[in-house]
């Protein structure tokens, strides 16, 4: 018997139409009547989607467009003619003509009852909750006009807060058991940390043997946070400590900002997704009191230099020295969620991982070494903050090995959401801020560093540089757009032919440089299984991001998240790239200066290894 791979029964997976056949096929569409109005929808569409098609609003809670069917909360109930009971519209695939009514008294009463029941069990006060004003439960309560708790409102806490993890905090008292986190962690990410435990009234979401999150295999990707409708899951917020450091006159507080937060933070201020606020953000950060604002893209460019050189070295070993031991393909290592994933699930392949640190950690080291020296500040007094789209970055900066500077390289990982809160606390309305530049000595970075934020971005940046270094010519694509790396397909595979190589790299002449781009750890798993099966022998470079969509879909980005929103953020990033004067990492003048001044031996040299590279831990899957 074939292994039943997905946890989800086939019947609960969305019905998919063969795109080749199209919906025009006979029987490919069905006409249903919603509140008396006919709508034609593809066979297998859920009633919920049909309602949206017909502009009929149906409240939902456990449904999420990124995930498999739920049907747990029962808020999206509708009446379907011929059925004795009400049906959950999110979980009802249409396969024959139906008459649907979304506004009967029974439906309204039932939805309100469900809401009342959820609220009766919900132990939380909106004033004291991270999700206040961005909570689906709260919003629905308002929409339904809840003005009293018909079945009470519990005052009794049933669960202890789990704050064991550097990245996540679980407050199960606020959990309404929609199981989106379960479907995220098991089906979407295939990490498998969270599941529904117990039965009946005892049902709750927990981990293996109810262990604290820090003790189980959580990769800290935070995807569950992004999909949790309530404040039950959130990131571990360091802003109090950061505020303290800012107030402390002896501390020099610097912040580096990653590309994705700029493209997403506008959403926290009510702007359309995909509004880039880079310049405004710089000003706001200074107004909050950060002493310096640096651009993480600078170290992204640096990563390209280091990781690219590492790849070329591996290729040389493999092709010229005929070294059989060299691990190819090389995998990117900038996504800390992915790094932890491979450490746990595929520890035997760690030598494939580039030893280059992630941009965040490279910057951390540089700030407390070269920058401290340059600026004449005692590194002990520097507080280094990293604004990241990511919850796993919080774990990463707390890795014990991340102290090449002699200090904790990065003190705090701050997410986009948390910074937005800090900005609001300071009484700043971000979109109205003036625009300003990043601080020297690192200045502006290249567009290549910027596109790190989207899945495929690292690959694209690497190719722009590698191709040019190897052949002496620019990558042969219009406007430097390497389309093969772009888009949200789970796994992308392509290649570039290397021809007319410069003498230094003549051994690569005629080589088809093959690469793979994958995002989301479920796809990473597929890639690793391909590797295991020996199917990646002729692939050279693999980019993997733990989060669906890449960093712009990271666990620290504004909530909600959907494919639509992620697309818009990506568009913003790619558009900004095209607007920049420098769009290749190696052409970033600051990079050149940096190497000349600090690491004259160049990328992957002894000194660079000491400061800009790291090593990994074989963690394995066993939970003690």
């Amino acid at each position, binding site marked *: *018997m074939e*292994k039943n791979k997905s946890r989800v029964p086939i019947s609960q997976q969305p019905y998919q139409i063969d795109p080749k056949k199209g919906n025009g096929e006979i029987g490919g569409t069905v006409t249903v009547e919603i509140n008396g109005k006919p709508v034609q929808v593809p066979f297998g569409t859920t009633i919920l989607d049909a309602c949206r098609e017909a502009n009929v609003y149906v409240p939902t809670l456990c449904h999420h467009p990124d995930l498999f069917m739920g049907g747990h909360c029962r808020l999206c109930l509708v009446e379907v003619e011929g059925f004795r009971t009400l049906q959950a519209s999110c979980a009802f695939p249409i396969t024959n003509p139906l008459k649907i009514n979304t506004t009967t008294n029974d439906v309204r009463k039932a939805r309100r009852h469900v809401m009342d029941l959820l609220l009766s069990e919900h132990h939380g006060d909106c004033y004291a909750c991270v999700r206040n004003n961005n909570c689906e439960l709260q919003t629905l309560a308002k929409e339904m006009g809840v003005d009293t708790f018909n079945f009470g409102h519990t005052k009794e806490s049933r669960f202890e807060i789990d704050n064991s993890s550097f990245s996540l905090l679980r407050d199960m008292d606020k959990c309404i058991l929609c199981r989106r986190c379960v479907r995220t962690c098991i089906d979407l990410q295939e*990490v498998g940390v969270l*599941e529904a*435990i*117990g*039965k009946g009234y005892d049902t709750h979401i927990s981990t*293996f*043997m109810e262990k604290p999150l820090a003790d189980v295999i959580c990769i800290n990707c935070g995807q569950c946070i992004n999909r949790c409708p309530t404040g039950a899951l959130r990131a571990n917020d360091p802003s109090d400590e950061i505020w303290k450091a800012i107030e402390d006159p002896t501390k020099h507080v610097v912040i580096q900002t990653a590309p994705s937060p700029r493209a997403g933070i506008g959403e926290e201020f009510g702007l359309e997704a995909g509004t880039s606020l880079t310049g405004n953000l710089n000003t706001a950060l200074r107004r909050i009191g950060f002493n310096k604002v640096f651009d993480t893209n600078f170290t992204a460019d640096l990563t390209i230099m280091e990781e690219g050189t590492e790849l070329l070295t591996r290729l040389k070993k493999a092709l010229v020295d005929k070294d059989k031991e060299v691990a190819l393909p090389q995998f990117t290592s900038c996504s800390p969620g992915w790094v932890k994933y491979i450490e746990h699930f595929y520890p035997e392949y760690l030598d494939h991982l580039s030893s280059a640190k992630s941009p965040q950690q490279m910057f951390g080291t540089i700030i407390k070494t070269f920058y401290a020296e340059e600026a004449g500040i005692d590194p002990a007094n520097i507080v280094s903050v990293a604004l990241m789209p990511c919850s796993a970055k919080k774990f990463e900066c707390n890795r014990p090995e991340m102290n090449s500077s002699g200090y904790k390289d990065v003190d705090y990982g701050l997410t986009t959401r948390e910074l937005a809160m800090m900005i609001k606390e300071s009484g700043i309305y971000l979109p109205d801020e003036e625009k300003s530049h990043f601080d020297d000595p690192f200045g502006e970075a290249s567009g290549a560093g910027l596109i790190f934020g989207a899945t495929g971005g690292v690959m694209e940046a690497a190719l722009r540089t590698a191709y040019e270094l190897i052949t002496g010519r620019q990558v042969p694509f219009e406007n430097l757009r390497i389309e093969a790396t772009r888009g949200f397909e789970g796994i992308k595979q392509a290649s570039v032919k290397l021809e007319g190589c410069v003498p230094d790299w003549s051994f690569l002449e005629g080589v088809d440089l093959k690469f793979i781009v994958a995002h989301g750890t479920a796809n990473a798993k597929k890639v690793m299984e391909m590797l295991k099966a020996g199917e990646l022998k002729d692939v050279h470079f693999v980019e993997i991001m733990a989060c669906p969509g890449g960093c712009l879909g990271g666990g620290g980005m504004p909530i909600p998240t959907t494919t639509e929103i992620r697309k818009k953020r990506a568009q913003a990033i790619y558009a900004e790239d095209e607007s920049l004067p420098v769009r290749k990492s190696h052409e970033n003048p600051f990079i050149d200066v940096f190497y000349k001044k600090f690491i004259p031996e160049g990328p992957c040299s002894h000194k660079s290894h000491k400061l800009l590279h790291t090593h990994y831990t074989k963690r394995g899957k066993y*939970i003690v």
Partner: protein
Amino acid sequence: MLVLEKNQISAEIEDLAGYYGGNRTALLPLLQFIQKKYNHISDFAQQEIARVLDIHPVEVYAVISFYSFLHSEPKGRNIVRLCRTIVCDMAGKEKVEKAVERELGIKFGETTHDGRITLEFTNCLGMCDQGPAMIVNERVYTKLDPEKACKILSEVK
């Protein structure tokens, strides 16, 4: 746990999983087997099962926690389940309950100090026509009265 015992558990799990085609369908039979043989399903056994069936340990734990006859923490060598449903209740379950508690010196939900017996309630055993009823491990006893129940329990090892 001794290495030897670990190896044995792993081998048993692999065998049985193989019999069911290495499919997740094997999960319940596997859990029932381990439960019966070792009295509980340790976190090591759970992770071995997860490894062999290629699922996540938390999924195994979630399944165990769902079924009331499976448990992840050690209990007594003998598990006594007294039916708490209404018909047995009317037939004198409470008297049996009190007598057994008195006799063993523990409450329902607890295990004797020597680890001999765990007392639990269970829902309808399907013996309503001859209640009160209980199961000791796999064996069914019906038409209990306090004395009979205590005698049965005194005889289990």
